[in-house]
């Protein structure tokens, strides 16, 4: 039980790092990397919300149609609505009980609550046939994965805007290529696309 959880977490961090190997929620990663102080709180939020969404997914998936257009249309809508409700609840609670904290972190919170990676977790655990423990482990692991991805992107930032490079590549283009090479390295584990 615990080991399967840890294994799922390890998977989420290393081989199936959603952020680096598939580029999910990558806009959030780059945003966090721009202000390294914000990485910690952001990844905590990501951990929390991905945990919520994995639990929701675990319980909602059986209720939804599995095949055909209906599945393709309904599943995402329902899961997204669930995520929206989760976010609103969390925001309401924080706002009413810790207004100061909410004021400081509201932007970070919504960006880490509503992003591709968090909403992808139910699909991933469904396609991998994870149990509840593994899903939870995967969710926690993806929080850590977010932290690692942001830290790596932040570390690569100086070499992505050094004075010696062509002007056109300075900044975002270089960091996109940086991350591309990084995901190339990660592809050595899976030998192909992770998802």
């Amino acid at each position: 039980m615990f080991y399967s959880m840890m294994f799922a977490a390890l998977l989420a961090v290393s081989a199936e790092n959603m952020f680096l190997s598939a580029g999910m929620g990558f806009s959030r990663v780059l945003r966090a990397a721009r202000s390294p102080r914000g990485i910690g709180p952001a990844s905590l939020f990501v951990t929390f919300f991905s945990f919520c969404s994995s639990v929701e997914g675990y319980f909602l998936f059986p209720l939804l149609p599995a095949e055909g257009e209906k599945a393709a249309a309904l599943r995402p809508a329902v899961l997204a609505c669930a995520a929206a409700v989760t976010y609103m609840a969390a925001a309401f609670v924080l706002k009413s009980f810790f207004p100061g904290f909410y004021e400081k972190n509201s932007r970070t919170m919504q960006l880490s609550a509503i992003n591709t990676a968090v909403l992808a977790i139910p699909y991933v655990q469904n396609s991998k046939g994870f149990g509840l423990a593994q899903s939870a482990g995967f969710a926690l692991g993806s929080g850590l994965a977010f932290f690692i991805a942001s830290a790596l992107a932040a570390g690569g930032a100086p070499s992505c805007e050094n004075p010696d490079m062509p002007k056109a590549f300075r900044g975002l283009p270089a960091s996109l290529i940086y991350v591309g090479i990084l995901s190339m390295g990660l592809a050595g584990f899976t030998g192909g696309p992770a998802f």
Partner: protein
Amino acid sequence: MCAPYVKSGPSASAMLNQTLAALAAMLIVPTVRYGARPAAMAVMAVLTCAACEAFCSLMRYGKIRIDDSSFAVTGLTAVMLTPVNAPVWLPCAACAAAQLAAKAPFGRYGRPPFNIAAVAGAFAALCWPSESFTYMDPAKPFTLLPFGACEYTAAVSPAAVLKNGLKPDVQPLDMLWGTGVGAIGTTAALVIAACGLFLFIRRAASLETTVSFLLVCALLAAFFPRIACSPLTSVKYELLSGSLLFCSVFMVTDPSTSPKTFAGRCVYGALAGGLLMAVRYFGAFGQGACFAVLLADAAVPLIDNFSFKTVTVFGRRSV
């Protein structure tokens, strides 16, 4: 001409040229054993890299300006990692992709955060896995033309055998002479060691990275053997198979992509070794060196920041 008028230690271009010389020396044994094909491959790859370099400088400065030989190092390293029976275009294409996509955007030698040759190797492994992982059996008869197709009997490299959890049918000591199955430059352990010695003595490569790299690989191999055998045998097989040794001498020691402090380099080597063994154990390919180096390079800025903090906080403030 301006101060200083004296220098201590080799200059950057001198270090590059020494690495180049070592790589060229690595080319001798394969050329003797397989005929002109390895040399032809090397020439083509280096020419491709030079062409890419020239193209980039033309796009950027409007004139061809090549002021270091790092492109040749990239080309030769990439060739060393390809099997001799692979099509000649394979290393060339990989080098071109690496030069254009991973070097040109980041500037001249010293700026790119990743080892360009590792990018080339990883690119080849991902895009053309069959070409870059079918090895020929040098024991069986073969005809290798410098260019064009060649006839050979395919064989499984020791790394792949280990990957399948079996014991290679070659004695570990036979792997020293470069008679085994594998990529061009990665089989002759003794030649690699000699070139490494040359580089370490000339201070073109840092010893500590290699040592910690090999140490970690050996420890992992000893404690988690993939095949049923004594730890020592497992260590021998793991170290001598695949491109591990070559990587330890020529890829992780590249000063421009390794940390700037002694402790940092040790950590970097250990990290690369761990990652390499992880790719070997859990990865998709038996040939993990390039991927491991790429992942380890990504961690270098963090290692540097940390070691810089430690140097300035705990280290000497003044003499």
